[in-house]
């Protein structure tokens, strides 16, 4: 990590610590959830336009979100999306970018960002979708696994 990035990561850690002390974890988790939801909406729109998608299928959604969103952020192989049936997506994140930046993830502040992004992008693509289970690195799991049910 460059010195500049180290400085920004350090500032980010200090900001989160102060936000937590002043406003509490509920506030931080809510803000990250909202950011994730907005990102999810924007991501779905961007992919639909970029790949000229008329109607999403779970497998197209899985392929494009890995290629266009997760891999640029996490590196190749950093995430995979499995279509377990016509109505379920299993998203596996092998790398947490926050943890990689040396940020303490045990308070689960940043998990709500990922939840909001994955759930809302699927909602926008398929009309309705919700997270039905998750297993998170912040809870001690080796990787983050988020299962999303598509309700069509």
């Amino acid at each position: 990590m460059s010195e500049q990035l180290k400085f920004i990561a350090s500032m980010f850690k200090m900001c989160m610590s102060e936000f937590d002390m002043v406003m509490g974890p509920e506030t931080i988790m809510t803000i990250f959830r909202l950011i994730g939801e907005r990102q999810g909406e924007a991501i779905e729109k961007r992919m639909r336009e970029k790949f000229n998608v008329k109607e999403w299928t779970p497998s197209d959604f899985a392929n494009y979100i890995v290629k266009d969103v997760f891999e640029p952020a996490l590196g190749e192989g950093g995430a995979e999306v499995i279509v377990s049936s016509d109505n379920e997506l299993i998203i596996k994140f092998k790398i947490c970018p926050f943890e990689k930046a040396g940020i303490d993830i045990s308070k689960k502040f940043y998990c709500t960002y990922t939840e909001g992004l994955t759930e809302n992008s699927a909602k926008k693509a398929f009309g309705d979708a919700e997270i039905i289970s998750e297993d998170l690195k912040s809870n001690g799991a080796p990787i983050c696994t988020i299962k999303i049910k598509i309700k069509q």
Partner: protein
Amino acid sequence: MSLVDEAKKVLTELGEKVNILGSAVIRTNGLMIVSSLPIESNERMIAAMSAALLGTSKRTAEALFNGNFRSLNLEIDKGNMFLIGAGKVILVVLTDVAPNVGLITLEMESASEKLSKIFG
């Protein structure tokens, strides 16, 4: 009966006991579970702001008296908002400008105990 239906029942019973304009059950991460807020409300943002109010109120309670947050009454020129923590969820109630604070607080405490049990 689903958890959502049980929460709806708690809100309905609360509305029968006290004069309220709307109510909602919200997760502490700012997601709406059940609501009967006035139609013009932006539910998503109300849910997010309620979680933020709970977080800030808890921290203020600790800083002021080293105490534990119990409830919040937000007085607004056009009505009031009451907020109480209920374990993993938050109960929010909207009233007119001149509510019976004692009765509402009492009934909200009772409703929050029920919600705490419902959502574990």
